[in-house]
C-alpha cells in the first residue's frame, strides 16, 4: 500500500471528496459547498482540512466520518481531519455547479456576495428568484428557514414557499 499512497496526489483526493455529499443537502458535495479547504500529505498520512459552515452546524461530525470513510475506501489507510476556523467560511466559496444543483433541488442559491450582507444594519433583502417557476416576484417570510443557513421565502407568482440559501 505504501507504494500506492505515494502516487496519490492531493488533486485526486479532492476529486474523490467531490463524491461526498453534504448530509443536510445531499445534492451538493462538501467540495462544492466550499468546506474542504486543503488536502495534503504528511508522509503516508492524508491530511484534509475542513472548516465548519455555521458554528452550530450539527453535520460537522458526520462530514468528518464520511470523508474518512470515502478515503479509506480508496485505499488511504491513515487520514487526519484538521478543523480550521479562519478564514471563516462564506457562501462566496460555493461553486457555480453547487449553486445550480441547489436550484434544481428547490433551494434558491445565494443571490449576493457575503460582503453585501455584512454588518448590523437592516438592509433590503435581495430579489430572490423562485427555484420552482423562476419568477423574481418573491417575498421574505422569515429570516430563518428549516436550518440556520436558510431563509424562508414565498413566490408571489406560483404561490409556492421555498428555502433560500442565505449569502453568508
Amino acid at each position: 500500500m505504501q507504494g500506492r499512497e505515494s502516487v496519490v496526489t492531493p488533486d485526486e483526493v479532492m476529486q474523490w471528496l467531490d463524491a461526498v455529499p453534504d448530509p443536510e443537502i445531499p445534492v451538493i458535495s462538501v467540495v462544492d459547498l466550499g468546506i474542504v479547504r486543503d488536502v495534503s500529505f504528511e508522509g503516508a498520512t492524508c491530511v484534509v482540512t475542513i472548516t465548519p459552515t455555521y458554528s452550530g452546524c450539527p453535520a460537522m461530525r458526520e462530514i468528518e466520518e464520511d470523508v474518512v470513510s470515502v478515503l479509506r475506501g480508496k485505499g488511504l489507510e491513515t487520514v487526519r481531519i484538521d478543523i480550521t476556523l479562519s478564514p471563516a467560511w462564506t457562501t462566496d466559496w460555493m461553486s457555480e455547479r453547487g449553486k445550480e444543483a441547489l436550484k434544481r433541488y428547490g433551494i434558491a442559491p445565494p443571490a449576493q456576495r457575503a460582503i453585501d450582507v455584512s454588518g448590523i444594519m437592516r438592509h433590503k433583502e435581495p430579489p430572490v428568484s423562485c427555484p420552482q417557476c423562476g419568477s423574481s416576484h418573491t417575498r421574505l417570510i422569515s429570516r430563518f428557514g428549516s436550518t440556520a443557513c436558510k431563509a424562508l421565502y414565498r413566490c408571489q407568482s406560483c404561490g409556492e414557499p421555498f428555502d433560500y440559501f442565505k449569502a453568508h
Partner: protein
Amino acid sequence: MDQALFQYLLRMGDSTLVLSQRLCEWTGHGPVLEEEMAVANTALDLLGQARMWLTLAGEVEGLGRDEDALAYLRDAPEYRNVLLAERPNGNYGTTVARQFAFDVWHYMLLEQLQNSVDERVAAIAAKALKEVAYHARRSSDVLIRLGDGTEFSHNRMQEALEEIWPYVGELFIDDAVTEELAARDVVPLNASLREAWESHAAQILTEATLRMPAIEGAFHPAHRGGVHGRHTEALGYLLAEMQHLQRSYPGARW
C-alpha cells in the same frame, strides 16, 4: 496559566451557552412557527459559539477540562455569564427585548474581538460575527414589528424593555480581567462599546416607536455580578435542567 484570558473565555462561553439554553425553552411553545424556528436557529448558532469558547477556555486552563466538563460539571457560582443571558423568557416581548439588547452588544463586541492579538480569539470572533449580525437584524425586525404594531403589542414591548434594561449596565462595566486583557490588546474595554450600542439601539427603538429606558438605573449592584459568579435565582433552575443527565448519570455517553 493565563487566568485573565481563562476568565474572559468563560464569560463568552457561558453567556452564549446560557442564552442558548434559555432560547431552547421556546421550542414547542413559540407564538408562531416562523418565530419558533428563528429562535431555535439562533440558539443553535449560540451553542456552536459556546462550544468554541469553552473548548478554548479548557485549553487555556490546561487542566484537561473539555467543553462538556465546563458546561455540565460547574455549578451556578462557577458560571461567568452576564446576568442578562439568564433572565427568564417571560412573555415573547421579554424574550425579544433581551435578545435585542444582547445581540447588539454581542455584535459590537465581536467586531472588536476579531482584531484581537490572540489569533484563536480573533478566529472565533470573526466566525461568530457573521452569525450574530444576522441575529441582530432579526431581533431588530421583530422589535420594530411589535413596537410599531398594535397598542397592545406596543405596550407589552415597552414594559419588556423596562424589565430588561436594568441588566444592560453589566455589559459595559470593566474589571481587573478586562483591564488587563485590554492593555494587552486581546479584548476591548467593555465601556468602549457603550456609545455604539446606545446609538444603534436608539435608532432601532425610534423606528419601533419605543422609548429607550434610562441606562443610568442599570448600574445598581443587584443587577450585576454574573461575570464574577454572583447570579440571580433564575440560573440555578436553568442549570438543574441542563445538567440533570450528567449529574444523575456521571460520564453517561451515547
